[in-house]
């Protein structure tokens, strides 16, 4: 099997250096670009399987790179590197079509997990399995049966739609806007969403106060634990 190709776009050489080393150790083939223009130029000729993109680039910034890539019809998964306090930037990038994000500074395991989730998601979309299992939760997507801790759980149609959305993006962060658009057609607000999340947690989580399945990404959205 040919190794998966990952493009790292960051203006800081030390960061590129350790990412290259760490990702190469996991048998990815790593390409590098120092700014947005170089990245776009590279991608025109060389298809990659995943892009790790710094938001704070000199010249063309990361958001613009995401916009141009998605506008050009590329579906390549994109993971954003951003500062922890830049919620607006994260949300904007995700809304523009980025797949996930990691806040600097980060451990390499965290990034690796995101990379795996993003790559798996791409594969899942191509052929989804009829049974989803993650921790205590299992969902029969054909018969629409939800089981938590070995007990069948009754969900309202709207709750099921929400859970279904999470499952089809399991392990990935979903922004509030995205969820609202997909489940409610964009006709509702975040407060509404929070209430649904709470009831879902009450029905699915062992301890709704300390959720392990549906995780909150503060200021950005929610993430469902990846499938086992």
């Amino acid at each position, binding site marked *: 099997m040919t190794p998966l190709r990952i493009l790292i776009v960051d203006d*800081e050489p030390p*960061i590129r*250096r*350790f990412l290259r*080393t760490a990702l190469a*150790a996991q048998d990815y083939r790593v390409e590098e670009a120092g700014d947005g223009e170089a990245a776009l130029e590279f991608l025109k000729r060389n298809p990659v399987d995943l892009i790790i993109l710094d938001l*704070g680039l000199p010249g063309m910034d990361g958001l613009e790179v995401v916009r141009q890539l998605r506008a050009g019809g590329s579906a390549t998964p994109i993971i954003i590197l951003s500062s922890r306090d830049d919620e607006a930037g994260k949300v904007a990038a995700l809304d523009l079509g980025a797949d996930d994000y990691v806040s600097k*500074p980060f*451990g390499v395991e965290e990034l*690796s997990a995101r990379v795996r989730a993003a790559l798996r998601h791409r594969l899942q979309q191509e052929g989804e399995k009829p049974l989803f299992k993650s921790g205590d939760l299992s969902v029969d997507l054909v018969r629409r049966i939800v089981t938590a801790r070995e007990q069948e759980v009754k969900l309202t149609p709207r709750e099921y739609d929400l859970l279904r959305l999470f499952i089809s993006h399991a392990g990935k962060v979903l922004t509030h806007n995205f969820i609202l658009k997909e489940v409610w057609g964009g006709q509702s607000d975040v407060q509404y969403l929070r209430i649904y999340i709470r009831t879902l947690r009450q029905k699915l989580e062992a301890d709704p106060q300390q959720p392990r399945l549906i995780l909150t990404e503060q200021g950005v959205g929610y993430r469902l634990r990846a499938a086992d």
Partner: protein
Amino acid sequence: MTDTDRFTSEERRPSPEALLKEAGQAGRGRLKIFLGAAPGVGKTYEMLVQARRRKLDGVDVVIGVVETHGRVETDLLTKGLETVPKKRMPYKGRVLAEMDLDAILQRRPRLVLVDELAHDNAPGSRHPKRYLDVEELLSSGIDVYTTLNVQHVESLNDVVAQITKVRVRETVPDSILDRADDIELVDLTPEDLLQRLKDGKVYLPGAAERAAQNYFVPGNLAALRELALRRTAQRVDAQMVDYMRAHAIAGPWEASERLLVAVNARPGAAAAIRYARRLADRLRASWTAIHIETGTASEAERDRVAQALRLAERMGGVAATVPAASEAEGVLQFARANNVTHIVTMAGRGSRWLEFFRPSTAQEIIRQAGEMSVHVVPDRAGGKEIADKAVPVRSPLEPRAFLGSLVFSAAGLGVALLLRQTMAVSNVALVLLVAVLASAVAFGLWPSLFACLICALAYNFFFLPPLYTFTIAEPENVVTLLVFVLVAGIASNLTARVRMQAIVARQRAATTEDLYRFSRKLSGIATLDDLLWATAYQVAHMLHLHVVLLLPEQENLQVRAGYPPEDTLEEGDLAAAKWAFEHGQEAGRGADTLPGAKRLFLPMRTARGIVAIIGLDSQQDGALLTSDQRRLLDSLSDQTALAIERLHLAEEMDRARVAAETDKLRSALLTSISHDLRTPLASILGSASSLKQYRSQLSETDQGELLGTIQDEAERLNRFIANLLDMTRLESGALAPNLELIELGDVVGSVLRRASLQNHSVQLDLEPGLPMLRLDPVLFEQVLFNLIDNAVKYAPPGTVIALRARREGKVVEMSILDEGPGLPDEDRERIFDKFYRVRAGDRQRAGTGLGLAIARGFMEAMGGTVTAANRSDRSGAVFTLTLPMP
């Protein structure tokens, strides 16, 4: 029509004034006045009896001042009541004892006894009158019991003087009686009082003893007693009305009556005002004292008018000054415009014969008053007190004016003599009339009357037969001459009056123009000092006074401007200024408070409060301001106060802007820290976690690379933190350079070692024989390091960085030149700002934005400078340090 008829239901709600009056009482002390008809009725005794009763109720009572005049029974009553010792005040070699106001204020009793409300304080006291002391006690929340004889009440002063033929100087304004919460009449029948007098139980001051024979007669005492009773009854009535107003009880008190009193410079004005006040009280009318300005008043007359208007204000009236052609016309116009129902005016003093030709003001008013009632009061000073008897002061008669009218007359005569050849004698008179009128236009009334006389004589001499004598042959010519004199006289009079009005109008226009210019000037002024100076100058210029302006600064008043310039005030003046500022009322010379001060201090206020105090004095004695000037000053002060407030607001806005910029700086700092701390941290953390996680999968080289990254980035982090600390030291001013003599080459060598340039070559060009320099080696090395670091960041790899040092006069100049793109013009100075970075369009690694700011801060701390420019020989930036030679 009765008053009640005027009522409609919607008016049956509490009147705002009445409610305000009630609210105004809150927090104030209560005033009780023991009112007596004459000395000896037992006011002090009664006051003490009641005070003792209050004391038994547990009230904290002290005696501020009580005159027992050695009478045993009164003396006994003071026992057991605490007495605040009097203040001893040296005055002209004697020592006067006065009530110690400050001691009482400090003692803060619940109730203080202050005998003899009408007492005049010794010169040098804070207030000239005791009732003003009482006002201050009340306003600081202390209750006061006081005593008063009816003869001292301002509005009754005339009446009492008429009854008893003795005028007392010490008076209290009616307003204090109106404001009293309680008035108790201490009544004694005339017979009992006379008996007490006989028994020696009545104390009379030395002067009064002589008058006592005339004063203490049953008739007088009965009249005084009636006055006192009436005044008390009136007061009770007023209280009831107040109550009814405050509680919206309809009553026959609608202030539909309006009273107008015409005031002029005649000595009876004060009496007319007192009369008006009494009448207004009886009618429950609001009242206005009006002065009609016809433009003929002398300075002294204007002063007297101003005094009369102030008296009116003191007695609760409104004062106004209105220009008009004649007094009667002005009064009637104002009266009609303001729905006045009663007019009080003074009877003329001219003879009846004269009045036939020119009706007096009073007659004119009566004729045209229509439905208004007209009260005519005699024009008399009424008593001996008004000593400053009206000395008729005319505008100074200029000899030149008379000379001028003489010339006009001569010219007229010349023309007349020429015309006489061809014309009838009667026509010649017209030419002379022209000369008289010309004199009136040019010089005013008296010179024109003088011209009239000259022309009449000349006419007789030159034109009426027998010629060249002053005799007249034909009777008809006598008539001609008389008619001439009459016509010339009337015409001069009219013309002169028109001229006077024109002058007044011109003066007003000039004043208005001045005010307008002043306000335009104020609006253009940007600094407080300029504004204050302009104001001081303007006020001094327009009012011919010396001016100081004081502004509050940290709890204190400071002189901020003066014309003529003045920096400090004497203690007394400062005290008066402070009082004016704290109480929002005038103080100092001519005012009720601290009249001993050299200057008069007035508050300048806006809606937000008092912004400044203006102090005025002049070298002349007498009143500082006429009422006109006072009004002018008021408008000047208002404008200035507004302008001061405008500047204050501008300052506040500036402060807000600075705060906003500080915020911007803070967010720049946050961004910088977030980027510059996090990036190396991210590399370190990422490399370390990679090593930990995937050590087995990594080759030796890879591991070495990750470890190298960790070390490099940790050093970068360290540099950044050191920069931040340097900046903090600079900002906090804690930086004390440790200056020593150093060799430039030494420092350059060590900084180059430290910078360890890998991608750039260095060209050193230090002039031989440079002197040792007095610098802090550590700081200077940091400066050089930061500049070289900056050059490395911006100049492309493989280029040359040059270091040059030259001796230039008294300094050594050192330059750091790079071969990068150079500096954008607009960034030349800003690059030294904290957190400012030239926008890197290429993939340059952006720095901390602190390096150059630190370089400049350090250089300045060592007495040098650093500037930035572009190279002239090629592209690239050059940073130049000037290093002072020891």
